[in-house]
């Protein structure tokens, strides 16, 4: 039982990372129907910005996290304006090819500047184990930090999306772009806000992972990017609670599978779940077909 609870905490912590990245995929997809394959690389850039701030400028954890998020949101806006906006009305295959190109550009552009080797991320968070309520359950403080930061960011996102004018305009554009335009909503601005927020969350995930695993490299975004995409699809791409659910679901599943002897199979399990979900509920577990009323 103790073992199980410890592993659950690890799973929630991994799931937090997936969920943070998955949110960006799903928000961008919700608003422009584009799978932003460069999203995992924004997460990588976030990790490097955090690395530079803490290693060279000796920032502490929270300021580094905040500035990384800011830099990534600006990067997200630039990527959209330069790469995606010109092809907004093109075919899906053109969009897909562009997204993959942006991804490769970020990966190998970064490699050019920082070299391909793995860097050691400074240990920003206390690497301390605590016993929960004097039981045998041992928790790693860093996991608690990850979970705390993730939940806080999700609460802020929830607030923005449901309570602010910017958030409501994002929802309106994703529900019906033409109708939103007729309300006087500026579509370009709204798309920029969406990229900014999604990228900021990915940047936060990058810093969190950097401090947790202490090592980063220019291709670190590939695997988590793919997993987070799977998480977004499992939950229902385009649906924000779906990304959160899918992220935690995948993180917990993978951790439990590894913990109980199946670490070689954890990726196979993830993709099997994906295929199964797509067969049974193609719109994702939280997806539904909204019927139009006449």
């Amino acid at each position, binding site marked *: 039982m103790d073992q199980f609870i410890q592993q659950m905490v690890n799973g929630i912590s991994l799931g937090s990372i997936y969920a943070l990245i998955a949110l960006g995929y799903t928000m961008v997809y919700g608003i422009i129907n584009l799978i932003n394959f460069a999203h995992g690389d924004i997460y990588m850039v976030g990790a490097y910005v955090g690395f530079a701030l803490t290693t060279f400028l000796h920032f502490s954890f929270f300021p580094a996290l905040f500035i990384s998020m800011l830099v990534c949101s600006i990067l997200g806006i630039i990527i959209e304006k330069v790469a995606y906006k010109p092809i907004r009305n093109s075919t899906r295959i053109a969009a897909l090819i562009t997204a993959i190109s942006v991804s490769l550009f970020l990966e190998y552009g970064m490699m050019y500047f920082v070299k391909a080797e793995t860097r050691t991320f400074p240990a920003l968070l206390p690497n301390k184990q605590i016993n929960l309520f004097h039981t045998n359950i041992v928790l790693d403080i860093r996991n608690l930090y990850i979970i705390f930061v993730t939940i806080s960011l999700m609460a802020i996102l929830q607030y923005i999306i449901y309570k602010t*004018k910017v958030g*409501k*305009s994002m*929802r*309106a554009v994703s*529900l*019906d772009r*033409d*109708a*939103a*335009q*007729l*309300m*006087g*909503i*500026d579509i370009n601005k709204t798309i920029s806000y969406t990229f900014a927020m999604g990228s900021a969350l990915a940047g936060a995930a990058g810093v969190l992972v950097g401090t947790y695993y202490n090592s980063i490299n220019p291709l670190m975004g590939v695997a988590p990017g793919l997993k987070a995409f799977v998480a977004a699809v499992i939950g229902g791409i385009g649906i924000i609670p779906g990304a959160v659910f899918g992220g935690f679901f995948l993180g917990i599943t993978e951790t439990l599978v590894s913990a109980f002897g199946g670490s070689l199979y954890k990726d196979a399990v993830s993709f099997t779940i994906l295929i199964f979900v797509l067969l049974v509920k193609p719109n994702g577990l939280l997806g539904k077909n*909204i019927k*139009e*009323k*006449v």
Partner: protein
Amino acid sequence: MLELQNLHVYYGAIHALRNVCLKINEGEIVTLIGANGAGKTTVLRTISGIEKAKSGKILYNGQELNSRSASDIVKLGISHVPEGRRVFSAMSISENLEMGAFTRSDKSQIKKDLDNIFSLFPVLLERKNQLAGTLSGGEQQMLAIGRALLSRPKLLLLDEPSMGLAPLIVKDIFSIIRDINKEGTTILLVEQNANMALQCANRAYIIKNGRIDIEGNAQALLNDEQVKNAYLGG
């Protein structure tokens, strides 16, 4: 107030509007009628800045609208109730109405206007926290009109507000349109229900295959043999 001069609009290779000229004076109800696919919706979408004209001019109080963004056009006082209502189905009724006031920042005046909308459409007040997708067709049409009014339009564009509604509700909608006009809002009404539209309007244009075919006083067209045979079911 609004003048379309020799407007041409294309969808790729499809020439949807050919040399459309149309004029709306302040305070009028003008109706644009015609068969399915004639180009009525395209006229409204071009006025609203969602489609761009290839050539021709859109003048609004002397100002050229062609190069303005859709959101500028809303700010200038033109509001558009789209075909098929297009309410934000997964947003609540109050949120839908809030979106209608998107371009405004005069909070206390918005609140007053919202109260007015609720007294015009009491059913919306009762259900203001419900998702718009759960409303009936007639209620959605009321919501779409209320939402459009919240931008305080001087000119209201209505695209087939009677589409798919029961006859009794169609009557309600038309009487609401007349009331809105009496309050001082100029109206361009697109309809397939030519009879009702001509009874409600001051002047009318009939569009056929992207061209304005006939124009004139609504009452006169209602009694015109040719119009009767072609558009009013004999």
